């Protein structure tokens, strides 16, 4: 699976991409594969304030409900409405169309301190 080089990753299996001060956050291909068929996604409303590490929503699959954590802190600008009607997109295209939220980042250093694509893949390899 292709893990984009420009993204950063967490050990909780979220990815982040950064454009200016706007971060886009999603869950990784590995995460959706572990969860199995995703049936419901619960996301915050725009305006919510998140600190790095806060649980900001959950992803429900036929197997389990998992919390998702903010890899970086800031204000929620947008939640992906596509996932309300089509949660299956999270299985089909986790790194692009099925992003979860966009955040106005308060501290860009939080982004830089996350895992690189290579480090994340090593981590996932070791975990499984």
């Amino acid at each position, binding site marked *: 699976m292709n893990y984009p080089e420009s993204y950063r990753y967490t050990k909780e299996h979220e990815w982040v991409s950064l454009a200016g001060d706007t971060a886009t956050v999603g869950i990784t291909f590995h995460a959706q594969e572990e969860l199995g*068929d995703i*049936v*419901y996604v619960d996301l915050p409303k725009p305006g919510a304030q998140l600190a790095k590490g*806060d*649980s900001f929503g959950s992803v*429900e699959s*036929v*197997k*389990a*409900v998992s*919390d998702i954590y903010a890899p970086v802190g800031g204000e929620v600008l947008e939640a992906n409405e596509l996932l309300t009607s089509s*949660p*299956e997109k999270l299985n089909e295209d986790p790194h692009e169309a099925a992003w979860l939220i966009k955040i106005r980042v308060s501290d860009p250093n939080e982004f830089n301190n996350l895992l690189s694509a290579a480090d994340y893949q090593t981590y996932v390899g070791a975990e*499984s």
Partner: protein
Amino acid sequence: MIRKVRSHLSQNEGLIFEQSSPGKIGYQLPPLDVPAVDPAEALGAAQVRDGIEGFPEVSEVEVIRHFTRLSTWNYAIDLGMYPLGSCTMKYNPRINEAVARLEGLAWSHPYQPESLSQGAMEVVAHLEDALCEITGLDAITLQPAAGAHGELTGILLVRALLESQGNPRKRILVPDSAHGTNPATAGIAGYGVQNVRSNDQGMIDLEELSRLMDDDVAALMVTNPNTLGVFEENIIRATEIIHAKGGMVYMDGANLNALVGIARPGDFGIDVMHINLHKTFSTPHGGGGPGGGPVAVKKHLEPFLPVPRLKRLSDSLTWDYDVPQSIGKVRAFYGNFGVLVRALAYILAHGGPGLRNATVDAVLNANYIRHKLAPYFDLPYKRPNMHEVVFSDDRQAAKGVRTGDMAKRLIDYGFHPYTVSFPLIVHGALMIEPTETESKQELDLFIDAMISIAKEVEEETEKVTSAPHLTRTTRVDEVTAARKPIVRWKP
């Protein structure tokens, strides 16, 4: 080979709505012998309901057959083993039912004056005493209606105590092997949740716990034995770490059935816990019905317990509402009284040695299954297990067969599935809890079924991945059902 079941005719049955014919009724009233009254005139039109659209109109025999036919499609603890780990499905002894149906108990009313309720109140007092003795705690409320309700009550007690000391604190620590209700409870009680990773033995990592524990942590919520069926050997040290910084330790009592008569939470540092009466004390499993989730506490949390508190006067029992620091009521009246009666019946029917025997048998049964199945299924955590055992589907996954496939095949063998994919720290978990209910004969049938399925995975993979085959409905589309649920019948 399938030994426990064979095929047998069962009746087709549609929805009761589809059997309706207009005007059909299941009763007949005598002719009116008083002047007719127009309800709209007597009560006001707003108080009178029109007919209900689509309400089924059927005769008595049709109703009886409808539900009886449906009941024959079901699986129940009265038909055989229910190996659902973590859910603890144990037999409900009939003595419980006989006692709960005694006229004076079954027909007592919560508005009866105390002078006429002394017997029922004595039942409550007896159960309070018994549960305090079993848990090693000092005081208890029987109000909460189920386990998760008990959890919330317990954490609200912790909050009330900390608030009375000036600071309710912010976070609750929850091990990653916890029941899903634990973080939900903490969230509803207004706390943030922080996960504590387990170590490679499946137990709380004390170093991690020390690192996470600070003055913002209100409590640790711990299940012991935990959801791997492993006793937290370092529980006393863990409670010391929490207490040293002013936190409380909450125990999820879901697995108390592995401790009764052997170890008491109050003795290993627990401040507050709930008890699931259906899991440990054989009351009917809730499933939406009335349940019982008593919460037992150490002395320092007693002032905050829900009102009313049962109080013994010199010659009678009374309900005491004058408890200024109480968190208030958590349930109407005094909890689900009928469930409390059943739990007390179970406790008294067994007595102390009998309760201890039930614990020992539950642990023995789980270990017998572990021993017999270990050659066929991967066992990720090797610590001695208590009342349940958790395998993973690692070996079968190599053939493309997952825990859910084998669970569905188990239905063909005449058993309810074990718990699949939980706890989450085990990849592809098969979680099995036999309870003390099962005889060696039933356990052997189950073990044979599991071994046979493991062989099918090797030799007839497709038979497992497409199971079940012998049920009325074959494999359903769980994904579509969850994504696009149709939750009610519409005309």
